[in-house]
């Protein structure tokens, strides 16, 4: 067993740095359709660990701009891949984090069709991206809110589409979208936070739906919603910290879905994000609505009334 009691920051930094140097790995090429998201995950995790400069800024911005799809007015996941709303949000988040939004023709992005497929994830993405671009006015708030309302279930949670089962990741996108649209009055806070608090299992980890296994990524989906609704205290933060730390790979760095599994940048990012919201010492504050460094969102005047746990003092 290799239960750690500390976040292995230097190892995670070098793990994320090494991701771009795996071109002799077949898996690297088979995941090109996730590259833009992966860069956003890696960059955000670096920022939260206080190592933003460990990734080359110019190279990153150049890569992002090379994924611009002129025909569609959005970003693909990789050069020559079709533009998609998932990679477009990641691209905008990277440019905002790197303070390089001036490279982008904002009017072109706002005009692109954001509602091809229906899913509450896409609604959140549109709200997040447009508010980062200062163009939230392009969203019809009443229509968006009424769709989210249709996706609400009796347990207070939300599904991907109307009729779908509540799922912690969909709860995050709906609650965060409502926060961006200043419509948190839509949420049945007591019911939803009861359902969210019951996601914590005896191991300290969180699952995404009743009677499922715990997984580090839910540390973020569940915690962010609790934090936006100011109810993080309804679960045991210390036990969750222990669960996230136990999923680290103490040899090569990175965080997995749970102890003993293969690590990836997705779980590394969401593990670090969860730890930040839990007040883990030495980390930078994360904004749970945008899942970006809090200071950047604050500087743009977009901070909502969420509450994380207070930052713990560093141990000697």
């Amino acid at each position, binding site marked *: 067993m290799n239960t750690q009691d500390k976040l292995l920051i230097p190892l995670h930094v070098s793990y994320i740095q090494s991701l771009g140097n795996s071109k002799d790995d077949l898996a690297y090429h088979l995941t090109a359709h996730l590259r833009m998201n992966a860069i956003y995950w890696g960059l955000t995790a670096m920022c939260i660990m206080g190592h933003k400069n460990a990734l080359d800024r110019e190279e990153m911005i150049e890569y992002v701009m090379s994924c611009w799809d002129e025909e569609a007015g959005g970003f693909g996941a990789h050069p020559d891949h079709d533009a998609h709303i998932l990679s477009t949000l990641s691209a905008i988040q990277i440019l905002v984090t790197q303070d390089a939004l001036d490279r982008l023709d904002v009017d072109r992005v706002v005009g692109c069709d954001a509602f091809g497929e229906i899913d509450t994830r896409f609604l959140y993405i549109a709200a997040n991206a447009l508010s980062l671009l200062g163009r939230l006015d392009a969203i019809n708030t009443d229509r968006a809110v009424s769709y989210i309302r249709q996706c609400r279930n*009796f*347990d207070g949670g939300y599904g991907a589409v109307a009729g779908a089962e509540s799922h912690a990741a969909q709860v995050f996108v709906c609650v965060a979208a409502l926060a961006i649209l200043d419509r948190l009055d839509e949420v049945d806070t007591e019911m939803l936070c009861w359902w969210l608090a019951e996601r914590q299992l005896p191991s300290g980890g969180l699952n995404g739906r009743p009677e499922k296994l715990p997984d580090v990524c839910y540390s973020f989906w569940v915690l962010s919603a609790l934090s936006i609704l100011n109810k993080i205290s309804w679960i045991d933060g210390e036990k969750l910290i222990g669960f996230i730390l136990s999923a680290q790979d103490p040899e090569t760095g990175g965080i997995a879905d749970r102890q003993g*599994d293969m690590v990836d940048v*997705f779980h590394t990012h969401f593990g670090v994000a969860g730890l930040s919201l839990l007040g883990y010492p030495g980390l930078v504050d994360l904004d749970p609505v945008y899942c970006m460094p809090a200071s950047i969102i604050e500087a743009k005047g977009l901070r909502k009334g969420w509450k994380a746990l207070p930052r713990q003092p560093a141990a000697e």
Partner: protein
Amino acid sequence: MHNVKRVPHSQEAIQARKERERSRIVEYLALTNNVLSRKKTHDWSRDAFDQTQQLLELNPEFYTIWNYRRNIILNGIFPQSTPEENNDLLANELSMTMAALREHPKVYWIWNHRRWCLENVPDGPVVDGTPSLQWRKANWQRELAVVEKMLDADARNFLAWNYRRYVLASMPEQRPVMTELAYTTRKISASFSNFSAWHQRSKVYSSLWNTGELDPIGSREKEFDLVHNALFTDPDDQSAWIYHRWLIGSGENEEQLRQEIAIIEELLGEQPDSKWCMDSLVYYCRLLLKNHVPDSEDIKQKCHDLLQLLERIDAPRKMRYQEIGQGM
């Protein structure tokens, strides 16, 4: 990556794997570049179509290639084919994606491609001089069997459940809603902890009550029997407790509320440490206070006592119990 065990590899083993992968990477990248450059020149040929299949078999998550494949079908193949040929082609797409789905049951793009295929199936041949819906009906019917197979393999796959609701809503020949109720009964009997099936059941009942197909009062009574059976079988399983809350709803029926409180108290007598019994009792007693007996000191006291116990036996959530107690 989910559920993939970490196995320690020596440097030699890693090098050997990379050695083995080298030629596959070269082939994969060559195929990718070839297909992407054909896409750029709007190549809608059969040859390009076949190449997209090759590439998607290697990587079913390559959404750009699914898009390209659909564009080839729309711009290159459909305009030159008869409706019958189009139907055959889409049937072929559906069986090809079935193989991919078995291996990758949670890849959104594969499910999306099936949706697109189904929505583009032509109606059917002309039979005795009148147009028929033969092809569409057959394909949607088959699709329901496919999604059932997927739910047999993983009864909690939420993409499959969402897809099931989509198929049921889109079938050209609608099935009676009662059939779906029977399906959820089967799923729940196979496993009481299948909350996805309980959830589906709540939606099916709502629809049956709304259309007047079922009497909300009588059917609810019967439904409580099923839930009690699940609660008494495994009082630690969340699924039936959450569903029970749905069944009670806003608690306007005082008799029912009191009856359910009595039954849960009976279960608590058998299982004195059951957190779900206590938490549910607090919730239902608060509904009783809110809707029927706002001044009952006895019930308030009962809630406070239970909340104190809960703080002890369910410490991770103690702040929640404290807040509820303070709010009363």
